């Protein structure tokens, strides 16, 4: 090392491929002691792959890792990262809600604890000292479930810091990786977390702060590294970097994709939603005209993905009215069965749990919504109808009697689409419809959606993939903290404009 400060962490040439696609492409990252280092990028930019390589979840194909100037062999064995001074706080925090603060704090601290005898009093005193030092309002005996969200986040962070602070093998402070800890926290609580992060870095700990939120990154980081399509775009000094430069680094130069959404003639809307509120969204109003694909998007935690689940009755809404083809009904009264009888269909995001039953056959999966209360099932006819769906939706499978688990993700999703489109829905709701699906199957799904629209169907598509919206959406609503903050139409529906609007939404919020 030529410079004065030996980096806490240094990654060189990290490459990871998944079935030919490069999730990480010769990525470099240098984190200095005592700095907060932002890691930025859109979905699929390689952020999480990089984090998962560090935690040992993924084995990279190429690349080297140095910690405090020492070479560390990759792949990192799972569970060994703490011994190297790396600790992770993921978005779900990894706390056991039923257990006490103290139990959570010491859980998994095998290195320090005597496995045969835990001195609970001494551990409680130690915890109290730790909380006092970090100015945290936590008591060892509290049950974690009773803590506020920010207290839970603080506990998770203080636990991670405790594990690596002494960095027991090497006597240097460690490195914390905070993976999106803030999206569900109110603004003032985010500040409290930032103060805590600053206290930690003051004692020499380095922090990698993974976030979608540019404002938070501008506020708390010293430097940031931006990833795009698996490559490092650059590392920026936060103090001397302007916001638009960072946005452009994240989104990239506008590369137009082939847009499929043709301009629509003016028409009366077929779907109207007013006053819709759920767990995150508040007082949403929107409408869709026949033949239109309405895209809903936003950053994580913004609530864009809640609207579809509420309208399909998958979760119950707090309030709201839906008018569909002239019929008006309260959204809180919608059950999945009611949604079906109103000709609403939902393609859920969690395909393996909510989209298909992997153990059951293609016929069973595809025909369930067509059975009603039948007392005499004609298996020949059901199989023939499934074959018909397989043919029309290009589901590649040997037989309709196969288990759905034997199909690829793309073919499963085409089957789910066929299952619902055979009911000729008036309103089709999509939640992340192309998650984990290869390019070919994506195109086929877009084809089917285009056909549906040509026939006058109305589609609402919630997705975090901006490019997908540029391709298929006629109009896009951008959500921020439960509300619609921007609307993009026609030629304005571009990947970069959507990204711009997502990040812009937060500026207006910060200004509030």
């Amino acid at each position: 090392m030529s410079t004065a400060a030996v980096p806490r962490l240094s990654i060189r040439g990290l490459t990871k491929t998944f079935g030919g696609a490069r999730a990480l492409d010769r990525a470099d990252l240098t984190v200095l002691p005592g700095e907060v280092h932002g890691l930025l990028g859109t979905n699929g930019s390689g952020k999480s792959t990089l984090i998962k390589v560090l935690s040992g979840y993924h084995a990279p194909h190429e690349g080297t890792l140095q910690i405090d100037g020492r070479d560390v062999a990759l792949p990192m064995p799972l569970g060994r990262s703490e011994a190297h001074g790396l600790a992770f706080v993921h978005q779900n925090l990894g706390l056991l809600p039923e257990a006490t603060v103290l139990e959570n704090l010491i859980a998994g601290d095998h290195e320090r604890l005597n496995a045969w005898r835990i001195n609970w009093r001494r551990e409680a005193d130690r915890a109290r000292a730790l909380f006092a030092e970090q100015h945290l309002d936590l008591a060892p005996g509290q049950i974690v479930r009773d803590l506020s969200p920010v207290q839970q986040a603080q506990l998770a962070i203080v636990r991670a810091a405790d594990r690596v602070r002494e960095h027991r093998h090497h006597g240097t402070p460690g490195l914390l990786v905070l993976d999106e800890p803030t999206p569900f926290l109110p603004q003032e609580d985010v500040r409290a977390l930032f103060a805590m992060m600053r206290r930690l870095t003051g004692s020499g700990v380095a922090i990698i702060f993974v976030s979608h939120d540019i404002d938070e990154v501008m506020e708390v980081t010293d430097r940031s590294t931006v990833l795009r399509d698996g490559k490092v775009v650059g590392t920026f000094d936060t103090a001397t970097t302007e916001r638009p430069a960072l946005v452009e680094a994240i989104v990239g130069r506008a590369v137009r994709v082939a847009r499929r959404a043709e301009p629509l003639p003016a028409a009366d809307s077929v779907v109207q939603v007013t006053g819709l509120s759920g767990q995150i969204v508040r007082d949403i109003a929107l409408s869709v005209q026949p033949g239109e694909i309405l895209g809903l998007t936003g950053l994580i935690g913004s609530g864009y993905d809640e609207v579809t689940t509420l309208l399909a009755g998958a979760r119950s809404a707090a309030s709201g009215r839906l008018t569909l083809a002239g019929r008006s009904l309260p959204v809180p009264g919608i059950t999945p069965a009611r949604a079906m009888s109103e000709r609403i269909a939902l393609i859920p995001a969690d395909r393996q749990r909510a989209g298909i039953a992997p153990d059951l056959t293609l016929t069973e999966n595809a025909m369930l919504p067509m059975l009603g209360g039948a007392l005499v099932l004609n298996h020949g006819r059901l199989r023939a109808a499934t074959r018909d769906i397989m043919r029309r939706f290009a589901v590649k499978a040997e037989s309709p009697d196969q288990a759905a688990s034997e199909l690829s993700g793309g073919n499963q999703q085409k089957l789910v689409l066929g299952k619902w489109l055979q009911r000729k829905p008036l309103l089709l709701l999509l939640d992340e419809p192309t998650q984990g699906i290869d390019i070919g199957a994506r195109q086929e799904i877009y084809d089917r959606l285009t056909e549906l629209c040509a026939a006058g169907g109305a589609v609402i598509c919630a997705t975090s993939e901006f490019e997908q919206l540029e391709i298929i959406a006629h109009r896009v609503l951008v959500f921020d903290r439960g509300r619609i903050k921007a609307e993009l139409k026609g030629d304005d529906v571009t990947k970069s404009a959507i990204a711009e609007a997502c990040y812009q939404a937060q500026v207006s919020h910060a200004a509030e």
Partner: protein
Amino acid sequence: MRPSSLTYQLERFGLVIVWIGFIALFGALRPDTFLTWSNFSTIFGSEAVLVIVTLGLIIPLTAGDFDLSIAQVLTLVSMSVAIMDARMDLPMAVVLPAALAIGAAVGLINGAITLYFRVHSLIVTLGVGTFLHGITLWIGNSQTISGVSMVLMEWVIIQRIFGIPIAFYYAILLAVLIWYMLSFTAFGQQLLFTGRGREVGRLTGVSVGRVRMTAFVLSGLLGAIAGILYTGTTGSANPSSGTYLLLPAFAAAFLGATCIKPGRFNPWGSVIAVYFLVTGINGLSVLGFRTFVQDLFYGGALVLAVMVSQLVSGRKERAL
């Protein structure tokens, strides 16, 4: 896996083949005692009760729930029938509907507690079953009650068709009905999705709670039918009768799920599994092994069955 492939057919009929192998083995060793029609017709008739208990189990199992109380429903109903018939002299037209009502009521209680309080059915039915056993001991004064009217015995065990007691045909009739329900009605598909893809089912309009409740009531009813037949078979009610049927029924249900329609609880697999297990035990006792072989055989079969089904599903996962 292609459904027509040889390995798949072997898997479907593997248990039948092993069963035939058992019969051949015991027949060769003891041709004059084991391989007689009277031995087989006795097995077919007397184990009809176990077949029906197993059929009752597979309905909630298909929906993803356990019913450990079914054997005690059998005991309670058996005892109630004996008391109503032998002690109170009530006509069968009253006794039989009352018996079925007991079974259905227990099913409703199991379902209500499981669904309303969101407790795992394993725990609920374990407790309810033990509670029912307590009631049985109480009303029967912990004694075997005999003197059941001949009418019942006549229509359960004495009447024979092709030499086999009529109880066997009741069991087969119920197997046909359950097979039809599981395979040819929308409700059968709803049961399947409730067990194997509950969220998919829920989002496709299946009212999962109602399906699970119905499954509990049906298993209660089948437990009650088994109880009536038990009293009819032995002419008496014994307060510990059901205790020895629960494990064999579970063993048969899981063993049955490895054949005919591998990977699914299915009535024909269950019927075959019951007679496979009983043949094994009968053969071993004919060879002179003592009663401990029952526990070895049933317990071993249950563990083996779940091991086999894990192996089968594991192989499918690896094949992906």
